């Protein structure tokens, strides 16, 4: 069979009988999940789809205008308490995030092994987990930390790596007995039991099992500061982050022809990302989302001037320095540019919040 046969061509294959018979065969087999509530959130939401980025940032940006949208009077006024709620800025400490662990909890893990390069790091806001990736040539090691409540879901999912589904092979990881499964001879994953409220999963690809097990011995548990210290200089530290965000916002404002007054954003545009790509995605994404919202509101209000302003600012996104920098690493900028094109055509992009992670 042609390895690249299209679905349309598949649909024309003379297999109608086999197709119909298979359907009836399947539906004659016993069902095991009938008691499950049909509308329940599928287990797959937690096991197949890792929670989307920037969940806290959604709340931060969804509630008010930024400095440049003129607003229509229905949005909070200047005295309505800027940047108060939902802002994930460091030091907020308001107690509104009950599950956020202490900064010195050592549930993250880093790799201490020369020759491996950090290629990616990402942490969700509010102590909802994170991940760090390392590469050496074609080999890749991904370390993910998740809230302990997700441990059983992930184990259940990984049990299906083997047929019949089974627990993983026991393996010591950072002092605890973890479970290991192999997707193939050179692709393995291990899940560590919950400790300090978090579970670790480590996946190694492009390496034999023995090499994977050796690397596990070189992992080290760290707290937030330890993670930051383990990152190369190209990553943004906590002390540098505010300045980098300011620089990104200034660049966006300049490219869009706006005169920005620092600190006027309402609510504040913030991020906790150390990786410039993800930091840029959260900053530019929040800006783009606000302008798309502005466009929608202006259209609904019949305010063509405001709508055109939003079109113009979004059209300038191809010149936003932060997006031009990110373009070399991933497709997030293209997502914003596509949405800008849709807005320019007079359309509110469907599902833009999901697409931009805002």
């Amino acid at each position, binding site marked *: 069979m042609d390895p690249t046969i299209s679905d349309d061509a598949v649909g024309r294959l003379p297999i109608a009988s086999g197709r119909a018979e298979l359907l009836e065969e399947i*539906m004659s087999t016993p069902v095991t999940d009938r008691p499950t509530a049909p509308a329940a959130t599928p287990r797959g939401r937690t096991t197949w789809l890792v929670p989307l980025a920037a969940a806290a940032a959604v709340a931060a940006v969804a509630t008010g205008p930024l400095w440049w949208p003129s607003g229509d009077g229905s949005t909070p006024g200047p005295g309505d308490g800027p940047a108060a709620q939902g802002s994930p800025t460091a030091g907020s400490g308001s107690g509104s995030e009950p599950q956020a662990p202490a900064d010195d909890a050592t549930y993250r893990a880093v790799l201490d092994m020369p020759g491996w390069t950090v290629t990616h790091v990402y942490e969700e806001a509010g102590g909802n987990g994170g991940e760090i990736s390392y590469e050496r040539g074609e080999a890749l090691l991904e370390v993910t930390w998740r809230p302990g409540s997700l441990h059983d879901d992930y184990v259940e999912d990984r049990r299906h*790596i083997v047929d019949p589904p089974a627990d993983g092979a026991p393996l010591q990881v950072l002092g605890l007995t973890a479970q290991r499964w192999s997707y193939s001879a050179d692709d393995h994953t291990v899940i560590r039991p919950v400790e300090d409220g978090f579970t670790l999963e480590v996946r190694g690809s492009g390496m034999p099992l023995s090499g994977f097990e050796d690397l596990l011995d070189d992992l080290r548990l760290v707290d937030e500061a330890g993670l930051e210290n383990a990152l190369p200089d190209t990553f943004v530290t906590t002390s540098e982050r505010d300045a980098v965000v300011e620089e990104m916002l200034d660049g966006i404002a300049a490219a869009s022809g706006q005169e920005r007054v620092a600190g006027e954003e309402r609510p504040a545009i913030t991020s906790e990302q150390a990786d410039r790509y993800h930091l840029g995605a959260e900053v530019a994404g929040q800006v783009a989302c606000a302008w798309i919202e502005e466009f929608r509101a202006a259209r609904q209000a019949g305010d063509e001037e405001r709508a055109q302003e939003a079109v113009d600012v979004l059209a300038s996104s191809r010149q936003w320095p932060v997006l031009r920098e990110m373009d070399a690493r991933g497709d997030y900028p293209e997502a914003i540019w596509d949405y800008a094109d849709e807005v320019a055509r007079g359309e509110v992009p469907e599902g833009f919040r999901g697409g931009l992670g805002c």
Partner: protein
Amino acid sequence: MSPGSGARDGPREDEFRRLYAAHFDAVLGFALRRVDRPEDAADITADTFLVAWRRLAHVPAEPEARPWLYGVARRVLANQRRGEGRRSALGDRLRRELATVAPDPSADVVQRADVTAAMRRLSGRDQEVLELHLWEGLEPREIAEVLGLSTVVVRPRLSRARARLRALLPDGPEPPGNGPEPPRNGPATAGHLPSTPQLTRKER
């Protein structure tokens, strides 16, 4: 209405028939593009839909159903590769029919042969993310669902894989060719349009 739906069918059966009708070609296509022998694709398709039938309450609503099914098919495929041709208990007729169908030389393909050949020279990780993008027509968010990763991981990974693929093509970023535009696979979803048309799927 789906063919064969009768009065004896309840809501569950109707729901599954709809799922099967909407995604059978895509799941079988997913399998056919990844196996050496067409009849093996019958096993993967049968086991994938068997999982969906047994766990119908866990199948997410559209448009996430297809990435979910691809994720199941991916795991079934991995199991089959480990089991060296273990056969499904179901789908005998489909297996026989697939074993005898001759590839249609004029069949639509999802990409040109030189791109396929270049993809084979990439790492398994790069191949997988490119296949899901170019063959199944998934956008990064959907690929993330299939692979169980987050979108922010998939986006740069896909971008790097495309760059590596471009570097392997004989004429650089713009592969030669004057053939017809590759047909599209996958559901039409709003998404991220590519910057290099030959290496990315067309959407809409």
